């Protein structure tokens, strides 16, 4: 998968419109940011990209195929890090990674898990229960869980929340590694200053609708505020 195309996607929950007229493309090596206030539809869009929700209108094309055509093959190429970390606190870091490695049908899981633990800097605490880890440590395990099967499309929902400066730097450098490896990365975040240093493209969402971004060399924070101001009154559409 070298390209992700989102074409005029809309999503309704009953009569409530969570997303409408969302279109963008993401090429290999790009990091796209989904930015917007709470309830703007960022998580809904990530869930649609992860194939966990289907769009009410429009379509998402992964390379040449849609989620319906690709099914499990598409899911095998997606890695997702949610705001909730998708980890079992009653299992150790090693057990969590091994479980997900086996679920993805990876060969030589033990070696890959050991390498992932090394990469996260948690090899020494690999056999401790995740419930005893700090938020930053859990985040590192969760990131390795999302990347264990070498996905081509990486989806991250608020990945910087609750992290200290060192953890943020580690996460950013891991994302850059994936970017250099040609992965497609889509992340939803409120941390505009951090996002400004990693994003190659930004999509501003207000009330489920994309708002024009005038990339005129200004900082992301200023562009974001300009986009929010230029949007129609919330709840008005």
């Amino acid at each position, binding site marked *: 998968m070298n390209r992700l195309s989102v074409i005029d996607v809309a999503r309704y929950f009953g009569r409530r419109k969570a997303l409408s007229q969302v279109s963008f493309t993401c090429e290999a090596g790009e990091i796209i940011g989904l930015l917007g206030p709470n309830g703007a539809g960022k998580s809904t869009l990530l869930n649609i990209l992860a194939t966990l929700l289907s769009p009410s209108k429009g379509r998402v094309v992964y390379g040449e195929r849609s989620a319906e055509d690709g099914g*499990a093959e598409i899911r095998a190429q997606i890695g*997702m890090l*949610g705001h909730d970390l*998708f980890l*079992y606190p*009653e299992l150790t870091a090693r057990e969590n990674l091994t*479980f997900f490695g*086996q*679920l993805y*049908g990876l060969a030589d899981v033990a070696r890959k898990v050991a390498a992932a633990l090394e990469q996260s800097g948690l090899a020494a605490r690999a056999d401790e229960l995740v419930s005893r880890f700090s938020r930053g440590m859990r985040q590192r395990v969760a990131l390795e869980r999302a990347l264990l099967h070498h996905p081509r499309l990486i989806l991250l929902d608020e990945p910087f929340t609750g992290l200290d400066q060192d953890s943020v730097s580690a996460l950013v450098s891991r994302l850059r590694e994936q970017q250099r490896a040609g992965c497609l990365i889509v992340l939803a975040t409120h941390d505009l200053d951090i996002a400004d240093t990693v994003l190659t493209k930004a999509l501003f969402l207000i009330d489920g609708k994309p708002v024009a971004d005038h990339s005129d060399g200004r900082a992301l924070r200023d562009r974001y505020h300009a986009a929010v101001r230029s949007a129609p009154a919330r709840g008005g559409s």
Partner: protein
Amino acid sequence: MSAFFRVAWIVMKKDLTVEVRSLEILSTTIFFAVTVVLMFSFGLVVEGRAVQDVAPAILWIAIAFSGTLALGRTFERERHNDTLRALLLAPSDRPALYVGKLAGILLLLLLVELMLVPLVGLLFNAPIFAHPGRLILLLIGGSLGFCAVGTVFAAMLVRARSRDVLLPIMLYPMTVPVMIAGVRGTAALLQPTPDLAMAQFWLALLGTFDVVFVVLALWTFEPVMTD
């Protein structure tokens, strides 16, 4: 097919590992089931003599109530850290996830029954060791039917705010045939003169219900979970 059962096996193994560490479901379920049986014994056992033929009904009431409690908890665990999304995102057959969850909860419920059946036999003077093979088959068949439906409903309600109320409301009407077959089959075995032909009939009926429920659950699990 081997990949299907491999996924079901690792999901079940993970659930049992988590349960062994926390004992959350097992302890609450056993406590609840024993309390139910003891309450009935206070009312229905007078001067050491139990009211005749009540043991099967009390046994299956305890199984149904404690089973509902266990079903609710097993998916609460997946909701807590949103691990259900991670499971659904994996490129494995989604019905295999269902089979893994079902096998895990069924094993836990059978463990509870291992304590429950002797307790009911003791308190209500029921001859539970008269036909142990048939009784075990009835318990497995009844529990499988109950958990097969319950696992789908519990998964479906995982994001519903009033899931604790909705689960029994949806589950009990659907599993009435399983409960009737379980109670009548057990009663046929535990009555003073066991009616083996009747027990066999209810056992066959339970087997039929189980096949229908499991097939329907496998068929509906993926659409129910994805949208």
